[in-house]
Structures are given as structure tokens and as C-alpha cells.
């Protein structure tokens, strides 16, 4: 503990690039539930499972505030006001609680709100929960609810779906960069391969290039293996300042070294450069700057592969590939667990499953377990810095975090 105190004081009055008085924020505990079609579990019980797991992992810290990431409960469960509902249901009645909504980026944005609260000292211990319950409604209703993340007056009214928007970007990307029809297959193949050993994954089965190439179209050129399955899930994080943490149990501490959210035009047609993913680029750059890290130092990148095209766009936006060259990384040697820059190390949205607003929390929890060496067969050897990015809509909101393993024994 002394070293940790020393490292704090050696930083002077605040963190680099942060206001004076801010303290380092650690992830004190993580909890994840299996992603899937949970006909027998309600939204509140999913939430409780994740919260209980995270509280147990954090070894007895009691949260002062709850940040719920959720997008679809008002539309699909007829339920808003999740802050109060879930704080009460989880045995935390009375604490500060609120819901954070930023479409598919809700998880990352909620984590940032909690980070800001804890870093500033306003909140001692924060609980961040991502929860989504999608299987109580049929697919048309789910598509319509998801389409509310696009422009209702100028996109959704035209019958736009999230998949169709990704398909429009994908076709344009193929056209501009002369990429072949199966250019993005590798993203799907690696995701499925990584999910085989993830007990929380929805699809624990590797797929072949042949299966990918013969898959039915969702919205051409986007096929079923380019699209992540929407499913139920909940995951939670406990954030605390280093000084608050109980004595360590031997596993390395993980710090949120950089946190950033950026937005861009919400409608795809309003983006001056629809393939540029400007919010992804801006938030990645800001998060890396705040962490005083370079993209070359990143050991793994949990990106948001809700549709395979976004893997290519995120890799380009974050600086792992030149513009138009992201698809060239869709290969084992580049992105597998032992590749140059491993992505989606637990299967990503494609194979772990896509639980909407909870995705950002799954990503962060998965990255923490990588940095703490708890990833078992999914372990990225020697991982010490992780970049984590989730996207809302077609990238109109991007939340990016840099997580860093702190030196052992501190």
C-alpha cells in the first residue's frame, strides 16, 4: 500500500491531464452473467445476478451510487426509472442512482459517469451496471426499438434498421477500398474462436470461412455472421479510489487510466465522412492522451463488433490501421489472442452476444480480467494495457477507456 500512496503523491496534486485533486480510480470488482435468451430470468434478476457477483468480487465494498446503463427497458419491458428500481431490488435502497442512456454506448458512458464521480471524490464507491432484456418481445419490435437510436424523423421512418445502416457503410467501404466480399470474415472467425472457452458466451462454437461465405443475408452485403445477436445480459463493475480499496488479495490492481466520450452527427447521412467514425477516433485519442499512453503500447483492444464493419472502422479510428486498411487486420496473426493486437478476446459482441447497453460493461469487465491474469484459456500473455471502446448507433457516440494493470505488490 505504501508504494501506491507514494505513486499518488509523486504525481503531485492531480492526475496528468486531469483537474487538481483528482484521484486514480481502480476497478475493485467485476461481475458478468451469461449472455443469452433467458426466458426464465427477468430484467431485475439479471441485474441482481451481475451486481451480486461484482460485490462479491470486490470483497465487501458497499457502493454509494449506482449508474445503470440501459437503452431498451422503456420500449421492451415498459419499465423506466431503473436506478431506483434496481438499487432497491439489489438491497441498496437509499443510495444515489440513475440510468445512463447512449444507445449501444450506454455501458461505456455510464462507466465514465461513475469514473468522474469517483475520481472527483464526490462518490467513494460506485457501482456501474449494464443490463438489457430483449427476448420478451418479437424481432420486429426489437428492431423498431433499436432503430430509435437512429434519427426517428429522417432514418427510422424510412424503415432503417441497425443492420441496414451497417450494410450501407459496409458496401460503401468495400467500394471505396476495393475490399473483397469476404474481407471482414476474419473478424467473425476470430470472435467465434475466442468465445469457445468463454462460459458467458452465447455461441461457444468456432465457425469456418465456408460457413461465413454461405450464410444468409441480413441486409446485403451484410450476412448473419457479420451481425451480433441481440440477447439478454447484465454485467457490473465496482469503481473505487485507490485509498478506499480494501487490502489487496494478491491480484494486481487495475486502474482506469483514461476515460473519454465523444459524439458525432447522429444520422449516418449527416456525417461529412460516413466511414470516418469521428467519435471513435476522438474518444480513443483523448483516452490515450489522458492515460499518457501510445496506441503502440496497447496489448489488447476490446472493440464493439456489433457488426463486422465496425471492427474495421474502430481499428482505423483508434490508430491500429491506416484509413481503408482496417479490413486487412481481419486475420489470425493480427487479432487472435496471440496476434499483434488481440481484439474481442472473449468473443466480442459477435459470439459472446450483444446485450445492448450492457456491452460496454462486459467489455470493461473482460479487459479487467485480462489485465489481472484471470482470463484462463482466453488470456492474452502479459497484458498490461487495454483499450476498450463501445459505440452507440452507427458510431454517433463512442466511449473509450484505457485500463492499466498497476505494478504487482502495490
Amino acid at each position, binding site marked *: 500500500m505504501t508504494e501506491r500512496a507514494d505513486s499518488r503523491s509523486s504525481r503531485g496534486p492531480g492526475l496528468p491531464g486531469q483537474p487538481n485533486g483528482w484521484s486514480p480510480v481502480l476497478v475493485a470488482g467485476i461481475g458478468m452473467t451469461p449472455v443469452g435468451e433467458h426466458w426464465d430470468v427477468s430484467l431485475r434478476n439479471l441485474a441482481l445476478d451481475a451486481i451480486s457477483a461484482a460485490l462479491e468480487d470486490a470483497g465487501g465494498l458497499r457502493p454509494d451510487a449506482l449508474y445503470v446503463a440501459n437503452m431498451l427497458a422503456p420500449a421492451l419491458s415498459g419499465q423506466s426509472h431503473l436506478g431506483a428500481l434496481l438499487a432497491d431490488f439489489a438491497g441498496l435502497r437509499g443510495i444515489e442512482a440513475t440510468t445512463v442512456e447512449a444507445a449501444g454506448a450506454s455501458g461505456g458512458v455510464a462507466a465514465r459517469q461513475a469514473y468522474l464521480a469517483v475520481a472527483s471524490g464526490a462518490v467513494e464507491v460506485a457501482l456501474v451496471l449494464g443490463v438489457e432484456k430483449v427476448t420478451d418481445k418479437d424481432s*420486429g*419490435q426489437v428492431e423498431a426499438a433499436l432503430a430509435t437510436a437512429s434519427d426517428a*424523423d429522417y432514418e427510422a*421512418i*424510412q424503415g432503417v434498421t441497425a443492420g441496414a445502416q451497417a450494410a450501407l457503410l459496409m458496401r460503401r467501404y468495400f467500394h471505396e477500398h476495393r475490399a473483397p466480399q469476404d474481407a471482414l470474415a476474419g473478424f467473425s472467425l476470430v470472435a467465434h474462436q475466442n468465445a469457445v472457452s468463454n462460459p458467458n458466451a452465447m455461441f461457444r462454437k468456432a465457425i469456418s470461412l465456408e460457413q461465413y461465405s454461405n450464410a444468409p*443475408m*441480413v*441486409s446485403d452485403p451484410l450476412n448473419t455472421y457479420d451481425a451480433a445477436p441481440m440477447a439478454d445480459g447484465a454485467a457490473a463493475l465496482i469503481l473505487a479510489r485507490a485509498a478506499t480499496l480494501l487490502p489487496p488479495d494478491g491480484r494486481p490492481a487495475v486502474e482506469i487510466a483514461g476515460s473519454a466520450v465523444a459524439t458525432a452527427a447522429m444520422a449516418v*447521412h449527416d456525417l461529412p465522412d460516413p466511414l470516418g467514425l469521428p467519435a471513435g477516433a476522438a474518444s480513443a485519442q483523448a483516452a490515450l492522451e489522458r492515460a499518457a499512453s501510445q496506441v503502440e503500447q496497447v496489448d489488447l483492444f476490446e472493440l464493439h463488433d456489433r457488426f463486422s464493419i465496425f471492427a474495421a472502422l474502430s481499428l482505423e479510428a483508434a490508430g491500429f490501421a491506416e484509413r481503408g486498411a482496417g479490413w486487412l487486420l481481419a486475420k489470425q496473426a493480427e487479432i487472435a489472442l496471440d496476434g499483434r493486437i488481440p481484439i474481442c478476446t472473449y468473443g466480442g459482441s459477435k459470439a459472446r452476444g450483444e446485450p445492448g447497453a450492457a456491452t460496454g460493461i462486459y467489455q470493461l469487465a473482460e479487459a479487467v480480467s485480462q489485465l489481472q491474469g484471470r482470463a484462463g484459456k482466453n488470456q492474452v500473455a502479459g497484458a498490461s494495457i487495454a483499450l476498450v471502446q463501445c459505440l452507440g448507433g452507427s458510431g454517433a457516440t463512442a466511449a473509450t477507456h484505457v485500463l492499466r494493470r498497476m505494478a504487482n505488490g502495490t
Partner: protein
Amino acid sequence: METSRHWRLRQQRYALVGEVCPSCELKIFPPRDICPDCGNEARTIFQFSGRGEVYSHTTVYQAPAGHTENSPYPLAIVRLEEGPLVTAQLTDLADKPVEIGMPVEMVTRKLRSDGERGILVYGYKFRPRLARAEQS
């Protein structure tokens, strides 16, 4: 019912009425009152020609509620000749294959119906440009 909501957008839906920025002359659709390029107020009405070309396209097989009776349907982003991109369905294709760069023009069609008692929402779609329109 949302009648007033669709009524408010009648000029955009039926006639592609947007704005032009008096400062930088950017043509803006949909209207947004503040120029996204230069940040100045932009409330000057601008009538778009309705002509453009396909920027990207796809087909929607898994339609959202309200659109399922038309599915599958072709969907595109169209680059209007005055500059802006617009998301819209394609129509009147017959067997014509869609390609990026294909010239198209705006027409008014039914966008969706909200059940037996609901209103029919009409608005713009785009069809392959007719030879007659090409000459104008």
C-alpha cells in the same frame, strides 16, 4: 397517432425543402437551423431538385415493426446533386440492378401504415432517374 408530428415535416417529406447557409452557402437537408459547417444561423429556405445518385444501398429483410408488410425493400443513401446525403428507400426498380453512382430522382410514396385505424405516412423515396428528367 402522431398526426402532428408527421404534419410538421410535410415540406421535407413531400418536397425536400431544406435550408441554405447565408454565410457559407452550404445546402442543408434535413433543415437544422444552425449550419453544421460554419456554425452560423441558417434558416434560409432552399428547395432541392430531388436529383442525386446512389452513395450506398442495401436490402432490408428483417424489417422493424411498421415496415414488415413491405419487406424486403431496397434502402439507400443518396447523394443529392446539391451536396447533402439523404437516407431513403428506392422504388420503381423493376428488375434494374442498383449500383453505387446510379442516377436517381425523388418521388412521393407511402412510407408506412400504422394499422387499420392509423394514418398512412407518405414521403420521399428515390427511383432510377427517367431520361426526361436527365435532360432538364
